[in-house]
């Protein structure tokens, strides 16, 4: 845990994901620094430093917000505490040919 006492940071209020500030093991309870204070979430899997953890449940196909803007859409239902990365998040841009 850093001096601020956070295990992860979300920069904007509406963000669905936070960036973890150290390597996280499954089962750890994370203190997440947010724009309006802090929230707690239990990691459901290992998450490496710098990767993203879901703060809320996200439905398949829904946009995922980070920095207050969409960074792509969920390719499957994502539970709070899950690792969010290329296996369950896809860009919505410049991929017409490959769909």
């Amino acid at each position, binding site marked *: 845990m*850093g001096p601020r006492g956070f295990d992860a940071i979300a920069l904007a209020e509406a963000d669905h994901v936070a*960036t973890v*500030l150290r390597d996280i093991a499954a089962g750890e309870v994370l203190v997440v620094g947010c724009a309006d204070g802090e929230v707690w979430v239990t990691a459901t899997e290992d998450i490496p430093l*710098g990767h993203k953890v879901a703060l809320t449940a996200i439905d398949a196909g829904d946009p995922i917000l*980070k*920095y207050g*803007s*969409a960074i792509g859409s969920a390719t499957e239902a994502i539970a709070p505490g899950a690792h969010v990365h290329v296996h369950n998040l896809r860009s919505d*841009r410049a991929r017409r040919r490959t769909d």
Partner: protein
Amino acid sequence: MVEFLGYHRPDGRVGIRNRLLVLSIGGLTGPASRRIASSLRDAACVVLPYEAGLLGEDKEIHDRAALGLAEHPNTGAVLLIGDNPKVLERFSAELALARKAHDAISMDDCGNDVFTLVSKATQSGARLIREMSRLRRSPAPLSTLTIGLECGRSDPSSGLVANPLLGRVADGLVAAGGTAILGETVEWLGAEHLLAKRARTPELAAGILAAVKRREEAAIAAGVDLLGVNPTPTNIASGLSTIEEKSLGSTAKSGRSRIEGLLGYAEAPVGPGLWVMDAPAFAPESLTGFVAAGAQMVLFTTGVGNSYVSALSPTVKVSANPETCARLDGQLDFVAHTGFDGSEAPEALAERLLATVADVASGTLTWGELLGEGDEVVSRFGAAL
């Protein structure tokens, strides 16, 4: 008021270095130019590989970039090397107008004997360096600085800490009357609506959106899935998932200032403030775009490490990744891991980085300069004859 010590040039601009630029116009004299520069103190060598046969936009960009580098405030004098004396005469005339000390030596002048070329050019270069070494540094305001904003081998620490840090410094520079340039058009993709909102005019907003659309359409037409190319595998391993995520973090380098205009590749801003350049994202091409546009310095953030720097403009390497800061301690000019673990406030970090900018501008060497990691690479877009 932050000041630095710089070299005041006859054209009114201020250099932060006083280098002899050995500029090879065309690749035929590239290897000889490198030998010439390597035997001269304070010489920077730039080889423009293409020349004869360039067409249209590429010809225009090549000439604009060559002149931008030659007239650059960090050059005290220029030694033009090439095969064709007619081409060198054209550049010499422009340098005379800009009152830049220079000499030009072509293969034709030397009977196409490369030994003669190297010998004559080395002697001429030595004379130019001796003369330019008479110039002394004197105080200059931050408003005389143009800084390029770059990121390479990014990870989430770039978007969370290092890029917003550059944004604060860019805002400070702009507020002081200086100039900053954001490039890497493909990394506006997904964040372009936020950049467009900051445009000075509606036409500029439309121009920014159109520049991104052209890149996106080029990627689609080429069958490229930007998810597979950008973020790069390095980015993905470090936790960046999509181009939108990378872009939102990347554009944070530009801060919150109003955007004054959209520049073509290597095109110089016509006034102070924040400008955006429609240019390739790959660092060697991107940095040369900034430098040829007149940037005396580049601020370059990296997540996992990136050693590349400009040959002509000191490039300040910044990282906020704690592991990278420890591993590359000797190759980073500014470590910002204290922003990642929260032990240093963003305002304090920005103040410290601005002090580093003034320090490097006044002559303190960057690691890239010490290690000789610099180069310049001018983009080429189309076919040639």
